[in-house]
């Protein structure tokens, strides 16, 4: 039997319709609280994309979301739902902090690979226990990763309050990282080309690493044997097992890659922006990764586009909160609606569209 819909409709049209529905409802919410949605959108566009300062923040947020989105997407490919991006990114931050504070780094070019390795290792390690429990004992990875988010928060809270806080400091945070770990911002990177990018915006070289991560994830998933096995396992577990694919290996591999990607986010927010580890450094980016992966259809390129969109929403939302009475939490509402329509209510959009395409085809035949 032929597919009910052409491939482009499945990949582009359905996410687009879902997105339109989510935005339409968001506009209704803005109307309901007595604000003007058109003016709000205009303000978001000018605030997030109207200046290099706005772009700098948009790309900074997008960098976080690319990593957490890729993390969720890789796990989705193996039909695993990793809700633990938040905790894995927290632990990634710990890895970055330990490495940045352990040596008097002479130059960022040396500190960056080391910190990235630390972030990935710590993130992967935090995903390893839920992965192993899922693979060998069948403990549902969704529940265990949720639990590990809370455990990570407690661990970090303990370490920052009792262990890593400099003597005499009041707030629960590590000391400032040494100057040798300062990552070049987009301002520094673009200045040699005569392009004056905002000096104040936090977007930094990690954005390029995020793009590289997208390419790498694509290569792993679609150009390696492991990636093929991960996708085969995600499509049909019995078929994969019949073909000799080992479930334990696939679950572990997919979750470790996923955890490492989530952990890598810390290079951007901990090393690139805060330059020290603070409590709640992740700020929910791990959960936004879910929305990003759903919207991006678990494909690295889709994740990249969706992360840009959410980066725009985040920076635009901050501007809205600054200049209007629309609180910042409006973004959380939009995020929830995107998850709802692209994830949970997928069939609500899909069924009528399938019927439409079938009717069109019948009309032509």
């Amino acid at each position, binding site marked *: 039997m032929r597919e009910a819909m052409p491939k482009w409709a499945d990949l582009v049209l359905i996410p687009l319709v879902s997105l339109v529905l989510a935005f339409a409802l968001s506009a209704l919410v803005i109307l309901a609280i007595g604000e003007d949605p058109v003016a709000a959108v205009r303000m978001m566009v000018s605030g997030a994309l109207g200046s290099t300062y706005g772009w700098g923040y948009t790309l900074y947020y997008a960098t976080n979301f690319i990593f957490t989105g890729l993390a969720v997407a890789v796990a989705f490919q193996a039909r695993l739902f990793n809700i633990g991006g938040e905790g894995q990114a927290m632990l990634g931050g710990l890895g970055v902090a330990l490495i940045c504070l352990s040596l008097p780094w002479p130059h960022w070019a040396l500190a960056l690979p080391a910190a990235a390795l630390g972030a990935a290792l710590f993130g992967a390690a935090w995903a390893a226990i839920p992965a192993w*429990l899922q693979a060998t004992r069948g403990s549902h990875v969704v529940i265990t990763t949720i639990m590990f988010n809370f455990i990570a928060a407690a661990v970090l809270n303990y370490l920052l309050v009792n262990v890593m806080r400099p003597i005499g400091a009041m707030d629960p945070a590590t000391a400032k990282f040494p100057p040798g770990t300062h990552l070049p911002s987009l301002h520094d990177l673009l200045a040699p080309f005569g392009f004056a990018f905002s000096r104040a915006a936090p977007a930094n070289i990690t954005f390029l690493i995020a793009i590289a991560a997208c390419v790498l994830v694509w290569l792993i998933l679609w150009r390696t044997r492991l990636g093929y096995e991960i996708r085969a396992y995600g499509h049909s577990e019995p078929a994969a097992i019949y073909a000799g694919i080992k479930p334990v290996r696939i679950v572990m591999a997919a979750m470790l890659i996923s955890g490492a990607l989530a952990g890598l986010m810390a290079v951007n927010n901990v090393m690139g922006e805060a330059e020290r580890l603070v409590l709640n450094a992740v700020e929910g980016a791990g959960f936004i990764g879910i929305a990003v992966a759903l919207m991006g259809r678990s494909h690295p390129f889709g994740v990249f586009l969706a992360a840009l969109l959410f980066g725009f929403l985040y920076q635009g939302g901050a501007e809205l909160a600054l200049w209007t009475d629309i609180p910042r939490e409006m973004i959380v509402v939009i995020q929830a609606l995107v998850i709802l329509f692209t994830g949970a209510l997928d069939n609500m959009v899909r069924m009528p569209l399938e019927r439409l395409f079938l009717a069109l085809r019948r009309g032509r035949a």
Partner: protein
Amino acid sequence: MDFATALQILDSTVRLATPLLLACLAGLFSERAGIFDIGLEGKMLASAFFSAAVAAVTGSVWLGLSAGIAASLVMAAIHGAASISFRGNQLISGVAINFLAAGLTVVIAQTWFSQGGRTPSLIGAARFEPITLPLAETLHPLPILGPIYHELISGHTLPVYLAFALVPLSWWVLNRTRFGLRLRAVGENPEALDTAGVSVAATRYAAVAICGVLCGIAGAYLATALQAGFVKDMTAGRGFIALAALIFAKWRPWQAMGATLLFGLLQAIALRYQNIDLGGVVLPVQVMDALPYVLTVVILAGFVGRAIPPRAGGSPYIKER
């Protein structure tokens, strides 16, 4: 630790266990019917806000409670529609519910009250008042039992007694009624129920609605009894602790009470002591915070008694044609 301190901690345990118990029973009904619900947190939060908001405006805690339950039911209806009618992913739907509640409550609170995402403080009839049980004062002078009755059993708010009364009631409904049998069947083997001519969708919607009502009471209790008003994110992960307790209890009502009391005790201890000195070894407060989750992972791992979820849980039912 003297007797009075122990009583105070246990008293605080009961108060803190109540929202967990209500949410845990809510999850129990939903999950025994095969609908996974990680949106307990969101439903409680929505109820906490709307109950506090309506109670603040009308001055009536009962109107507040009704509004809270209604809000929670709306969230449950979204989850039900996504999971049952549209056969969507129940876990993703739960995540969406949590964010929807987290965002909407603050947005609406800011619009209605302009107090930075909180409601005005509730006073008088806008809150559930403690109930003094009969003879509590008369029996107080009795040794041991008198203070236990006076401090621990008497003097709680109505939802506390309701929550504990719901434990045997839930057990009875699930195990001794026709509806309960159908509810459990739809979570284990929906095909069988369908063959028997009972609507799988209707049974599941009923379970999701019960879940909504119970989460509604839990949220209203948080905002109008335990505390006096709504603040941003006031559920603070309780929905997830309830979920943990549900697994800990292996989806059974009496065990749910035990698990939520245990987790309530951990919260009460963490609230009272910063660090606990166990004869040389100092337990930091964060251990208490993390313990419910660690215990749940251990239980899930099956090292200490295996927790097996309802067999049809998480999968939408597609009727054969």
